[in-house]
């Protein structure tokens, strides 16, 4: 038991905090646990959930990406403009995913082949993409979308189900691939020790490049799924998405030193950070304290993880 606890210290810590939050809600505001509310929370947090898949892989490979919010915004505007040209959903959907893939690939190429640190590349990319977008759109929204744009044109209920189903499949695919495919394990190997991975015959550059490209594609998917829930699209979408995603991933136990992390952990992180906002409103807490509480939870989760780990190490040393 203590072994299981130690190897999943962060997931345990996060679930513990989430449990406390949910019990408090159950006692103080049972209205929180209605199917409708849980579905809404899930849908609102979908973008973060999807981008957290890419971010988990990036952080496992010992890199970082702060440009995904900007990529998200670019793909949102592209989604709107392409759908206005009258293209059918499968076509413009593919084009948007391709756009995301190529934005991510550009990051990946500069990082892997240009040998620039990822924080520098993606910081620059964030500024460039956001400012170009403001410059070109001047803040105007994309309006006048085709009538069948929202919910794929199949209505709200089925549309929500379709989006949730799609994301579940994508998430499960990446979950399975990351733990079972050779390519998935290679990401861990590169993150743990790139030189050792290279000596073992893996191509670290190509793996890093592929990880960033996939993360770009996932940002595009996130933006697509989010856009299809609305009838108008804002050009500054995804503000702060990168910080939310990174916070959820690291709270979920992915080590920024590379080589360690799971999608389940990130899912726990998204669940915890994504619930707080709504939970506070249900508990009647003044919204101006929300950021402070979020900060405390991030710090508490990472410290708790360390304490659990040390505690179980001591126990096994005593035994």
């Amino acid at each position: 038991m203590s072994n299981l606890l130690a190897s999943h210290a962060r997931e345990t810590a996060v679930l513990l905090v989430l449990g406390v939050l949910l019990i408090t809600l159950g006692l103080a505001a049972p209205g929180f646990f209605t199917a409708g509310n849980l579905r809404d929370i899930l849908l609102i947090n979908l973008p973060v959930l999807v981008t957290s898949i890419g971010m988990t892989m990036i952080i496992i490979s010992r890199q970082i990406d702060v440009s995904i919010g900007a990529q998200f915004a670019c793909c949102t505007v592209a989604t709107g403009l392409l759908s206005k040209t009258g293209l059918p959903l499968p076509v413009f959907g593919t084009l948007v995913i391709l756009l995301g893939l190529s934005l991510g690939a550009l990051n990946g190429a500069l990082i892997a082949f240009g040998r620039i640190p990822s924080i520098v590349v993606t910081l620059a990319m964030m500024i460039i993409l956001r400012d170009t977008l403001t410059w070109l759109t001047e803040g105007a929204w994309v309006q006048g979308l085709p009538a069948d744009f929202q919910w794929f044109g199949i209505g709200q209920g089925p549309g929500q189900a379709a989006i949730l189903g799609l994301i579940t499949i994508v998430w499960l695919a990446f979950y399975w691939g990351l733990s079972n495919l050779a390519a998935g394990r290679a990401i861990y190997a590169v993150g743990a020790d790139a030189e050792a991975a290279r000596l073992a015959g893996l191509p670290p550059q190509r793996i890093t490049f592929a990880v960033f490209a996939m993360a770009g594609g996932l940002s595009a998917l996130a933006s697509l799924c989010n856009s299809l829930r609305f009838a108008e699209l804002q050009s500054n979408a995804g503000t702060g998405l990168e910080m939310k995603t990174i916070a959820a991933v690291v709270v979920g136990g992915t080590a920024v030193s590379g080589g360690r992390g799971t999608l389940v952990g990130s899912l726990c992180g998204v669940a915890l950070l994504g619930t707080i906002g709504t939970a506070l409103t249900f508990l009647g807490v003044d919204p101006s304290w929300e950021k402070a509480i979020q900060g405390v939870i991030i710090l508490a989760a990472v410290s708790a993880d360390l304490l659990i780990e040390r505690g179980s190490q001591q126990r096994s040393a005593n035994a």
Partner: protein
Amino acid sequence: MPDPPLFVTEPPLWQRVFPNREWVLMIVIAAELAIFALMGENFATSGNGFEIIRLSVELGLLVLALTPVIVTGGIDLSVGSMMGLSAITFGWLWHQQGWPIWASGLATIILGLMGGWLNGLLIGRLGLAPLIVTLGSFSLYRGLAEGISGGVVSYTGFPDSFLFLGQGYWLGFLPPQAPLLLVAIILVGIYLHRTISGRTLYAIGYASDGARFAGVPVARRLITVYLLSGTMASMAAIIYVSHLGQAKSDAGSGYELMAITAVVLGGTSIFGGRGTVLGSLLGLLAIVILQNGLRLAAIPSELSGILTGLLLISSILVDAFSTRAAGHRPATNNRTPLPEEEMKVKNTQVAILSAVIILAALIVAGSNWLLVRSLNPSPNTAVKNRMTIAVMPKAKGDPYFVSCRKGAEEAARELGIDLIWDGPTELDAARQNEVVEGWITRKVDVIAVSVENQASISTVLRKARSRGINVVTWDADSETDARDFFINQATPQGIGNTLTDEAARILNGKGEFAVITGSLSAANQNEWIKYIRARATEKYPDLKLTTIQPSEDDRDRAFAQTQTILKVYPQVKVIVGISAPAVPGAAEAVKQSGRTDVKVIGLSLPNLCKPYVHGGFLESVVLWDTFNLGYLTVHASHELRTGRLKQNAGSIDFGRLSQIEVRNDQVILGSPFIFNKSNIDQFDF
């Protein structure tokens, strides 16, 4: 790779002064200076030089604080948030607790020490990753600042002797905060480059374990570094407060990224073990001069972001190539997952490469400038008597201001004047000041500002007036003695009353409503909420404002907040959105919830709301004609400069707007307008 020689000979002088090829940045800065001296108006003046220094003090302190942090291989994302927490603490101690300025300042710096200590403790002693820890304190410190002040409070009215620190001139030209920055540069420079404990930071950054085995007290050094960065952030906050004349929880937001950009641009390796104070300062200068120069050349400020990003990538590329060319092993801690390969690039090739990159950046800037010129048929430098009117929105990207801009541009075409339209991309009081400072240096004829924060902008507007520039405010007013006229579209009271009356009409005077605001710290929205409350208590005793939730001017966030409100407060039947993106967001949430008993009203643009008004989810939109507001602002600015607009002038015609009332020092556009199903299609903005 060949073995390193046994005896290391002293490297040549230029390598000792510029160990990280800082000369690349020097070339960039020189090129910027040359180009902007040609393009920008009054760029190459000593006055502008000192303004650049003034603008870089706060950021400079953060850059100095972050250099040692990044040299150790760490990062501190919390410095900007610490500025917010420090600013609000400083204001609270002085204003609410009646402490003297020096004592408040001292206590604030101690707070900065404590904040840095917390970071240092978690990173140094517990060994947690700096990125996670400071990401947590980034939220925590900003959150505490917002929580303490409710986001709403801002402290103003600081004594002149304190404001002199941030706004005055020593000997008539020297910004008083400049010597402070100089002292900080010297101290940090000596610490990092000339003390033993400073040098060990490089060892920690290069190989932390190795340093520990060599007897370096790693944990203690790390704590020192984060202590330093917390302290510098709180000092920067005090200077920021004296510069802007107000203490508010949003001080320094986004500064952490700008500071990190400058440090990295300056050649400090993000993986640690490499970096100089000189390099960081050059990085800072390159960015600040770029922003200032583009502003004086009246080029859209987004371009400075794009160029900064390109500069960042290209300078590091040059650096990476030249490092490999010189045979150094890059101090990357093995983090770049790449095999070592020898790249034979000669120094001359490096020089050519950097020259090409700089040239490319400048061609982009130059062609843009030419484009702007070709759009204005007679360039303002050639025909000096063409009037230049500079108009600033609160936020350029906001759809509300985008529609104002169209009106302003039409008026400019009619009058044959040069219109400069620039401002912050997001709500940012400090950036507004910077833009006005730039316009003063550029010597425009009229400045028209939609004011984000009264206290902070009034000083700089007074300065503009004292230099013979006419100042008007529009949309939101400054302090009355800081401007000549206020173009008043509708009073906050008028808006509050109209919205409350609409809510009462829908509810038949009895029931509960909720408000979705833009951000908790936006001054005008808080003003409207104040009048909504006042009107409700005064006229509709059975009307209850149940809750106020922020949406950060983000449609998706307003959507989520509305969904939650509908569930937590099922008795709420009217949602009042008071920021342009919040209204369609709230309406979409009501639509998707299927609740037909809830109606949305609010302050927004007709174009954003049309589908929801026709769908029956959005009852009415309250707004004035924004196109006309922009149009009137430029016309009134013009008439003010020509002398036709005088106080109490009665009713005058402005272009195609006839019989506009001028009351005292205000030009009144008219009362707010209610858009609903019957009339909304007649408007297009």
